[in-house]
């Protein structure tokens, strides 16, 4: 329970020395760490053939030419709504998972958690387990302490460097950049980004650790609004454990509970809390205390699950001896169903957008200074600046045409009359000046405005796109 006494506004950090633990949640966390870090470190090295004129890196954020490549998907700046949609999905997904399973994101997949876990594992490997680390912390500075600390920071820096390195590889051709980085010819931005990320990774994962979650991250503060009595989170069965060993509350009427106050759950906790105090803002629900307690329960011959994934409702029901809900009853609630449907709607919207996304596109900007031009034979002409986009890996011939109720004539600047085919270079936007004219005899030349539609057709695969605009006549003057 949160204490209500007057805490000072500034709390000095109590160093946390998590003890090594084994169990199913620890194994799950190792698995997820290998998976997520593996994706992060290896993704830039996957190749994907897009033809001779486009980069062959599967995941590439090409800032210079403003392109984002993700396997078979290519996003141009005007399609940034895909990113916005993904962010909305990420937000809704976080809401969904939090209302169903609490801070499961924080406990298993958040980069801060994964890297902290990696840094703690490294620390344990070099400096030893909890007790050895506490001793080293309290020890006076000597050669041994200096050697261990130096080794630890050196390994941390290497991890940080690899992390920063992996980051920069997403922004340019990875193999080329690696060679350039090694022989010293890479861009300064690459080096400075790596330096910055190296330092911040070591700081966040090695030094700040749980303080980022407690003080810097806004998410724990928002959790409370997402969680309720049905949310499956990590709890302590106090009805079973209390009164714990050494407690003054042990009497004849209330004998000692299952908790032997061994502190195993506290010692393994990466954020340094006591889960037996109940739900706490600091808890990232990593499940390590469950592993630690289950291990002890097995040793003293008690059933597992003194600390376990359970909902506040269940804890209450168990205490009263009432039947508890099944897992699916906790998860399938109006709240989670609403989040899931919103999430699916956005997701399906993006999928549809992705499928109807064309490799050919155009935008038409009518030149309205002047609104129309009179030619010597009385023909009225409008000028349009058309940007044609070719997302293919090779130059494509695009044919321009115009449809309208009026007999409008289209001409491409610099090309012979009747030649309306424009060669658009690979993966680029091409600007063409297009003239549309109405002969003096037809109404469109004297009408105020005539609706019209530009068409562009990829003559190779018949892909097409259109844009609506108006043809301006003299308006009777």
């Amino acid at each position, binding site marked *: 329970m949160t204490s209500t006494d007057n805490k000072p506004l500034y709390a000095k950090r109590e160093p946390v020395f998590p003890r090594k633990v084994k169990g199913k949640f620890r194994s799950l966390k190792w698995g997820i760490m290998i998976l997520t870090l593996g994706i992060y470190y290896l993704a830039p090295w996957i190749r994907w053939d897009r033809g001779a004129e486009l980069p062959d890196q599967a995941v590439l954020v090409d800032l210079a030419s403003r392109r984002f490549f993700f396997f078979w998907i290519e996003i141009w700046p005007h399609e940034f709504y895909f990113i916005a949609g993904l962010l909305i999905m990420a937000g809704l997904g976080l809401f969904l998972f939090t209302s169903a399973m609490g801070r499961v994101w924080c406990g298993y997949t958040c980069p801060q958690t994964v890297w902290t876990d990696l840094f703690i594992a490294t620390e344990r490997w070099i400096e030893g387990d909890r007790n050895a680390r506490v001793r080293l912390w309290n020890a006076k500075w000597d050669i041994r302490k200096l050697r261990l600390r130096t080794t630890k920071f050196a390994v941390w820096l290497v991890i940080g460097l690899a992390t920063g390195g992996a980051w920069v590889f997403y922004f340019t051709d990875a193999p080329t950049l690696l060679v350039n980085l090694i022989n010293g010819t890479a861009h300064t931005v690459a080096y400075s980004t790596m330096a910055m990320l190296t330092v911040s990774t070591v700081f966040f994962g090695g030094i700040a650790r749980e303080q980022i979650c407690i003080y810097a991250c806004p998410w724990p503060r928002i959790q409370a609004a997402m969680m309720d009595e049905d949310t499956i989170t990590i709890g302590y069965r106090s009805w079973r454990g209390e009164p714990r060993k050494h407690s003054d509350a042990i009497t004849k009427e209330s004998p000692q509970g299952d908790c032997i106050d061994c502190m195993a759950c506290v010692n393994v906790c990466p954020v340094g809390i006591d889960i037996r105090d109940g739900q706490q803002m600091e808890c990232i629900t990593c499940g390590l205390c469950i592993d630690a307690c289950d291990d002890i329960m097995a040793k003293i011959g008690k059933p597992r699950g003194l600390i376990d994934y359970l909902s506040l409702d269940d804890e209450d029901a168990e205490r009263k001896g009432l039947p508890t809900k099944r897992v699916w009853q906790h998860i399938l609630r109006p709240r989670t169903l609403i989040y899931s449907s919103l999430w699916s709607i956005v997701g399906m919207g993006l999928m549809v957008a992705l499928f109807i996304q064309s490799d050919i596109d155009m935008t038409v900007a009518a*030149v309205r*200074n*002047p609104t129309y*031009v*009179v*030619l*010597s*034979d*009385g023909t009225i*002409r409008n*000028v349009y600046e058309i940007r044609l986009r070719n997302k293919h890996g090779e130059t494509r011939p695009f044919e321009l045409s115009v449809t309208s109720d009026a007999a409008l004539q289209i001409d491409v*600047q*610099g090309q012979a009359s009747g030649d309306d085919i424009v060669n658009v270079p690979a993966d680029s936007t091409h600007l063409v*000046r297009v*003239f549309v004219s109405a002969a*003096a005899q037809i109404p469109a030349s004297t009408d105020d405005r005539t609706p019209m539609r530009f068409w562009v057709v990829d003559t190779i695969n018949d892909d097409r796109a259109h844009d609506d605009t108006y043809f301006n006549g003299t308006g009777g003057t």
Partner: protein
Amino acid sequence: MNKLDKKDDVETTGHVWDGIEELDNPMPRWWVWVFYLTIIWAVGYSIAYPAWPLINGATAGLLGYSTRGEVAEDIARLDASNAEVLARLATADLTVIRDDAELHTFAVNAGGSIFAANCSQCHGRGAAGVQAGGYPNLLDDDWLWGGDIEQIAYTVTHGIRNEQSLDSHYSLMPAFGADEILTNDEIDAIVQHVLSISGQDHDAVLAGVGSTLFLDNCASCHGEAGTGMQEIGAPNLSDAIWLYGGDTDTILTTIQNARFGVMPAWSEEFRGASGLSLAEINAIATYVHQLGSAQ
């Protein structure tokens, strides 16, 4: 008057609001140190950078920095990076610029900027001229002095009816009325003939009289059919485009008093520093040429 707060053992400021007293705690140490650091920084800054105002300007600072100097550097860098393409543009054959995509894009963009700065005052930002105001529309297909790219470049270089360039386009239409070459009745008849050849409503009888007068007085420049002559800048009178207006009154005024449209010679050869270089003229010619119906 300050007194100690009993509970916290800290002096109060003596301010009391609704019984609430304000403690006079010292500033946090880190804050004070940052404050001193900013003072030290300011001293160093004012030595290194322009800082102290003087009567004419300010102290220059040891680093010699100025924002104006920075702009000058930027411009110099830009000039240096454009030098190569400008040199290519200056020596390029105008008729083949189009085939060189990079050069053409540069010329159109540079030409557009130069046009906006130097030409738009008369020809308009969109190059549509001033309708019936004597400033030609550069978007249409009617060219007084020729509309192929080399003719456009020549017109920009030498201008029209100016005294700066001896090679400027020059021609003179007589003021048929003001100089009493023709009578008012004769001029009225010619006006009707001009209306007829340009397909407008007219008095057929007068136009018949006017056609003979036209052949005698006007056809030597404007041609027998009134289709004009680009070599001497004589406009085509049979089309739908009128530099000064094609209604009865305007045509009458034009024949009475004649017109004398001028354009400066833009080459730096004739204007010195305010003139345009060969590369710039080529850029403008390319820009104007791609606007509309240049030949």
